């Protein structure tokens, strides 16, 4: 199976500070990867760097996506290649409705114009799956949304844009049990053998219904250990102490 995402020896700064220090990661189609690591290790930085967030600077290394070098592409170009990120705290955009926003975004992802009626139906269906009240599509994007509503709205966008790679940045944090279930359901709806997931999380709750292929431990800007799906449970019990020791020892 061909590699979907290949990160080779990536170094990056957040502002002036070096956060990623030679990170390597390969994701194949159909796989689900989880990255865990202590606060400040560089997890969010990694996702933002992949997407060329202008607040972060790649200093060396390469990002290859679907056979194409995307290291120096702009955020929107990368998005149009098929990489999606679910934001930890999505921005509020007053005056732009959820519906119009997603429709515009979808229009950017495909060559054909978006069929209004088809799209409308699809949004309604996906919103129902995510327990989102239908009138939410008329509300201004993320404005006054609760934490849970924002996260569901991110998942809704993921379903609508159907990227090749979806990166979830702590999508489960701050959610109650029911909301986590709903988000998991959304992830399940998205996932198939042709796409891939990269999930950053601190807890195992969101992973319960997923078949996780790899769990990576990210410490101090590098992946220091990779295990199978069971590793997340170990981490939840024991923390990162032994990996930190390993790195320093």
């Amino acid at each position, binding site marked *: 199976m061909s590699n979907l995402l290949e990160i080779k020896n990536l170094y990056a700064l957040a502002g002036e500070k070096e956060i990623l220090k030679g990170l390597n990661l390969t994701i194949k189609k159909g796989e689900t990867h989880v990255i865990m690591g202590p606060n400040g290790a560089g997890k969010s930085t990694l996702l933002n760097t992949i997407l060329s967030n202008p607040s972060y600077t790649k200093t060396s290394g390469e990002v290859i996506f679907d056979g194409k070098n995307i290291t120096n592409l702009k955020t929107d170009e990368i*998005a149009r290649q098929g990489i999606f990120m679910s*934001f930890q705290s999505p921005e509020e955009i007053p*005056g*732009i409705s959820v519906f119009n926003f997603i429709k515009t975004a979808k229009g*950017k992802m495909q060559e054909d114009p978006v069929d209004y009626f088809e799209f409308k139906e699809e949004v309604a269906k996906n919103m129902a799956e995510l327990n989102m009240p239908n009138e939410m599509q008329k509300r201004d994007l993320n404005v006054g949304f609760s934490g849970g509503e924002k996260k569901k709205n991110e998942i809704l966008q993921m379903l609508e844009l159907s990227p090749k790679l979806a990166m979830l940045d702590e999508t489960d944090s701050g959610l109650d049990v029911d909301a986590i279930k709903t988000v998991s359901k959304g992830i399940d709806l998205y996932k198939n053998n042709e796409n891939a997931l990269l999930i950053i999380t601190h807890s195992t709750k969101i992973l319960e219904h997923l078949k996780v292929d790899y769990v990576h431990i990210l410490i101090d800007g590098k992946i220091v250990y990779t295990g199978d799906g069971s590793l997340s449970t170990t981490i939840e019990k024991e923390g990162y102490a032994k990996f930190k020791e390993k790195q320093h020892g």
Partner: protein
Amino acid sequence: MAKTKLEELSTNIYNFKNPDKYEYKMAKGLSRDIVEEISKKKNEPKWMLDIRLKALDEYEKLSLPTWGPDLSELNMDEISTYVRPKTDMKENWEDVPDEIKNTFEKLGIPQAERKYLAGVGAQYDSEVVYHSIKGELLKKGVIYTDFDSAVRDYPELVKEYFTKCVPLNEHKFIALHYAVWSGGSFVYIPKGVKLEMPLQSYFRLNSPESGQFEHTLIIVDEGASLHFIEGCSAPKYNKVNLHAGCVELFVKDNGYLRYSTIENWSKNMLNLNTKKAICEQGAQVDWVSGSFGSKISMLYPMSILKGDNSKTEYTGISFAGQGQNLDTGFKVVHVGKNTSSLVSSRSISKNGGVATYRSLVKILPSATNSKCSVNCDGLMLDSISKSDTLPVNDIQTDDVEFSHEAKVGKISEKAIFYLMSRGLSEDDAKAMIVRGFANPVSKELPLEYAVEMNRLINLELEGAIG
């Protein structure tokens, strides 16, 4: 379909110039002779000439405002105050001369009339060239005509109201206006008559180094209601043009008036316009204002809430680009009991433009149990542009609910990144944020005008970002 059509219009529709042809163009400058000459050309009654001459005296006594944008480049000796187009007023669109007709065709005026207006007025330079109103409204006693005709046909009504809302010595440019006014619309809506479709007057200034001084006077009688739309534009010249119009609005007991303006003057225009409304008991006036053009604007519509239970809302947006200084805002005076005002203002600046929101809220001791809420937001698209809010609040009674919120900020990099992560280019992302920011205003406009406003925003953003 109307929507598509508007979007397809060329980006330069406002900027086409016709040759400076006219029947008569007044010598530049301002003097007693010139004022008398204008009055004579118009065959005016003496009482109107007397008002003009009195205003000229006031103009000479008054000094330039010491606050706000610098107006030193305005030299009245370089401005022609009266330019009569080569036609008299027509009531049939077909009779309007081709060149002028084509101008308004390009601006979409007659199409709009056919589709969703109850009446239309079109002014070219100093004179109204076309005025029409649907027949059934005439039968109901509605008057909608150009101001010069009103002086001739309804002198008693004009005398009763003219200068009674905006006095001729209120400031220097209103004195100038009254001295040389020409054109504009006169509207009377009889008691209880509610117009379902708007009336629209469009003002086009084609002649270089000239001024437009139209006078709009609207009387909405008891229990009547009207939506009036005003549009303005001009091609760009190298030298200064001046617009000093005046709008006087009288809304009687329980009447309703919505006054919407989309202004896209060219960027050599000094727009020093005065607009005021007096609301009687239970009356309401709502202002919707989009300011895009002009080099300098000083524009502060005002509502006087004279009657008990009267209300006003102001929703305004201004967009200042390179070389523009837009000083706009709203003034309200609460006089009656239980009066309420709601103000929502948005200003956008880019490429070194300056957008200032300047406001006055005055609540008199008599205005007990009144409410006023002001919300103004400034958005700067880069670090060389300026947005500012300068509110003055003068609250003279404790028995009021008053709130004031002002926010000024730069366009959020995080928001741009968020939208770009969904495949929108940087320009598209910024345009979407600006459109969203402007939405409180566009949603107050009829659909066709909202589309037009979004198109103006896109025009302003084009090439300016990146």
